[in-house]
């Protein structure tokens, strides 16, 4: 997939446009607005969580047509030129943790950006927290990560239907 950010066409008087021009003026912008940029990932394998902030090493990349995910940085980078506002959703799960707290957090370029949602944790069941926020990103540059903050050492849940997730969609310039 090689969608480019939507370009606002300019129609020049006296020009003699070809079909390729209309594809650039009409087809490509509508295709970009329809398809957008989408990233979705889940955490299906084990990961220990230390007390404090933990970047989730998503291992199951559900869709990432622009190849923005880095398993080294554990972060997603928007495609070059696709600057703009992205809606980022982060869901985190930890194993049973008595009387503690779990937070879902968006990380940007190695720092925590938004603390989204907190859960008072249970000592006998997995615990989940999720939230979303709009984030301004520079294409090809900014790195977005999903972070779990826990009040004491724990581990992520790997059970299907109770896994850490991160989804990102482009929402406009």
């Amino acid at each position, binding site marked *: 997939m090689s969608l480019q950010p939507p370009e606002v066409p300019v129609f020049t008087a006296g020009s003699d446009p070809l079909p390729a021009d209309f594809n650039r003026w009409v087809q490509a912008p509508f295709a970009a607005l329809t398809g957008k940029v989408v990233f979705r990932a889940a955490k299906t394998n084990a990961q220990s969580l230390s007390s404090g902030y933990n970047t989730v090493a998503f291992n199951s990349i559900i869709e990432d047509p622009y190849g923005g995910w880095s398993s080294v940085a554990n972060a997603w980078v928007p495609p070059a030129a696709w600057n703009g506002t992205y809606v980022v959703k982060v869901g985190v799960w930890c194993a049973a943790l008595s009387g*503690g707290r779990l937070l879902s957090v968006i990380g940007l370029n190695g720092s925590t950006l938004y603390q989204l949602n907190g859960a008072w944790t249970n000592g006998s069941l997995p*615990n989940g927290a999720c939230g979303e926020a709009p984030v301004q990103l520079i294409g090809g540059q900014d790195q977005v990560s999903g972070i779990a903050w826990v009040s004491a050492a724990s581990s992520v849940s790997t059970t299907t*239907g109770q896994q850490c997730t991160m989804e990102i*969609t482009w929402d406009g310039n």
Partner: protein
Amino acid sequence: MFGEQVGGGSGFNPGPSCADLVLLQNTGPAGDYVQLIARQDTGSAVSTAGNPFMSVRWVAPVSGVSGLAVPVNAAWPVPPAYVTSSFLNSSIRDAIRYLTYPPVFRGYYQGSGNTLASTTWPAGAAVPLDTANGAGSSSGGSSLDPYAGWNAAGNYWQAPVAGVYSVYVQAALAATASAYQLGAGFAVNGTTQWLRSSFQPASTSPRAQLAMRKVRLSAGDQVQARGFQNSGSALSLVGSGTNPCYAKMIIIWEAA
């Protein structure tokens, strides 16, 4: 409109979330406005912690043309083919119509007679939505379903077209003297994805949890709100008729 309502007293700061789909149609100085409000009932003032934030985004106009297919964005005709009105209507008019008025859904629970059974994790049960076919209102608490995806008998919303959707589910339960775990999620074609689950102390006010995730749906996929609680006995679901902190589900088409 209330979002999550959670218990305190853990020694850690609670961090509830709120999300809703609201019809704003009165503009100007005396028009509609949106505020972020926090409520707490400890009996004394409590400081905010972290960085409370609010974001608002436009999703769709008040009305539009529904029932359209996702734009295919066909290539421009190359001679000897020529541009027809049909081509322009499907490629430009309907593309604009669809992208400005995509499938959205807001259904909620208004009643007061339903309960959520106490189950063993991760079973849970469907959260009924008894108000799901309205036209929307800026006063809040209304339903919206221009693509008519709601199935009242099955208590699910059926995706009219394929694509990536944002799904939000809020499970809200009446107060109980028992501590318990409250979870919220949704099922796609019967398979449940939990997004939210946390410990709730005994309470004298309702409790609510908000789940959210972006999922890729095929046309015809069925999305159902789900809730979980293990208090040991069935708990009443909170409806909008009795409390502003009520159960609801919101779905928004985001991308092809």
